[in-house]
């Protein structure tokens, strides 16, 4: 026995060492590369290691190849309603996810009221305040059917939508609230007549208005059955007392959120990385009860091991808000590890109603492609 021990001490073969996986990172480096560790004081390893030669000394190729991306990328839809959706994107990087978010908020076009021609406003709401409020009303129309209106263009049926608002509160009647359903769509264009200097000529032809509609917008097939109306009919625009009147015409044009927030098609769009809650050691009995009661969103659950012993498990890591309540006391940091998965994004898109949210995301990706193409064509 002593001889055997002596022999073993002398002969130490490297083949006895535990296997280091070739072609893969060792687990602590893999943790650093793919997870953000949310410690008690601050998160660490937040940057994404993009450099292609980052792990060159270990013989691992960090460069992304399109085939690897195509194989690993997945999308899972969690919730899809008419106005909002939540979906997961797995295998993408934060830079691209952020580009999508920025485009969704600022660079997707919508229609919103821009010019307001006020014929009569005797209410207490000032003209400019009224015009500002009208601009913020979301309009239920597909902006892809319209063109942009630039300064040199004339407003016609391809780039303008005209609404009319005429409300009056008669003397003796109670105060009325003007809501957004009072906005009536004028498919034939503006009805306000422009004053022209030469009143003598062409008195028989149609008077000139502020828009030059060639044909009625009602004839366009998309609008035959769906008139253009504001998305929400109960938005309060103004309040009128007895004897006050508002008569105006509002022209809506196409724009993007960068110019003014009224043209943003989303109420908001945001993403978060998937939280991961890991129990570093077995937590039993009283500690398990304590852990379960600490979490405000019930991430943990108790399971019975039999013989009256209980153990804590992580039941709903996705609901974790990373409030760090579970690692707050003494020693809890050694038992619970809070992390975020760096390439799993939970996207939520809330649309204001012009386009459904899945169409919004597809359009946003198209816009990023167009930007790339612009750069490529500028370079060539």
């Amino acid at each position, binding site marked *: 026995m002593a001889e055997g021990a002596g022999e073993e001490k002398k002969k130490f073969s490297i083949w006895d060492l535990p296997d280091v996986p070739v072609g893969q990172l060792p687990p602590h480096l893999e943790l650093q590369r793919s997870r953000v560790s949310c410690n008690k004081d601050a998160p660490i390893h937040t940057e994404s290691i*993009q*450099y*292609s*030669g980052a792990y060159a000394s270990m013989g691992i*190729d*960090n*460069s*992304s190849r*399109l085939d690897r*991306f*195509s194989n690993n*990328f*997945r*999308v*899972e*839809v969690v919730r*899809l309603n008419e106005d909002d959706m939540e*979906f997961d*994107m797995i295998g*993408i*990087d934060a*830079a*691209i996810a*952020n*580009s999508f978010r*920025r*485009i969704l908020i*600022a*660079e997707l076009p919508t229609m919103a009221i821009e010019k307001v021609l006020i014929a009569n406003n005797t209410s207490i709401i000032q003209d400019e305040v009224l015009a500002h409020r009208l601009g913020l009303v979301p309009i239920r129309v597909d902006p892809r059917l319209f063109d942009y209106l630039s300064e040199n263009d004339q407003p016609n049926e391809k780039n303008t939508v005209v609404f009319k608002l005429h409300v009056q509160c008669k003397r003796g009647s109670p105060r009325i609230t003007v809501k957004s359903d009072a906005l009536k769509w004028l498919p034939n264009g503006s009805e306000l007549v422009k004053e022209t200097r030469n009143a003598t000529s062409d008195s028989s032809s149609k008077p000139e208005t502020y828009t030059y509609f060639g044909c009625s917008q009602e004839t366009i097939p998309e609008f035959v059955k769906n008139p253009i109306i504001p998305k929400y009919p109960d938005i309060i625009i103004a309040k009128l007392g007895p004897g006050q009147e508002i008569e105006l015409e509002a022209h809506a044009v196409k724009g993007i959120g960068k110019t003014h927030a009224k043209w943003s098609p989303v109420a908001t769009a945001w993403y978060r990385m998937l939280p991961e809650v890991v129990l570093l050691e077995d937590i039993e009995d009283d500690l398990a009860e304590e852990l379960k009661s600490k979490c405000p969103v019930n991430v943990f659950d108790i399971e019975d091991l039999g013989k009256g012993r209980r153990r804590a498990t992580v039941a709903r890591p996705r609901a974790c808000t990373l409030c760090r309540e579970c690692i707050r006391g003494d020693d809890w940091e050694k038992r619970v590890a809070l992390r975020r998965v760096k390439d799993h994004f939970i996207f939520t898109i809330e649309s204001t109603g012009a386009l459904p949210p*899945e169409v919004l*995301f*597809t359009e946003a*990706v*198209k816009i*990023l*492609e167009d*930007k*790339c*193409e612009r*750069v*490529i064509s*500028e*370079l*060539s």
Partner: protein
Amino acid sequence: MEHGSFTDNSAATFSLTDEDHTIANAVRFTLNQDPRVTFCGYSIPHPSEARVNIRVQTTGDPAREVLKDACQNLMLMCRHVRSTFDKAIEDFKASNAVKAMKIDSLDSSGDDSEESE
């Protein structure tokens, strides 16, 4: 427009107008993934002016080609994202439709209408 040495075209700064972090960060990410690149980064000279400077330094290939390839890669990634997303939406809608039909058929007396796959 490209600012760089006329003799050595493996390092250059590209100044893009009317752009901001949206495309610059995404292009910088794809540039970093390219093994021919030794250095890449972007900066915005002044926040009030919509201009982005992208700096690319490579191991010998012309910087212009490398940037073009990175943009092409980004475009292909976007196309793949779009097709995967569309397919996921279709699957979700189909599975919801099947669920709704199953609930309907459970309510009514076992009338099996056509199920979409």
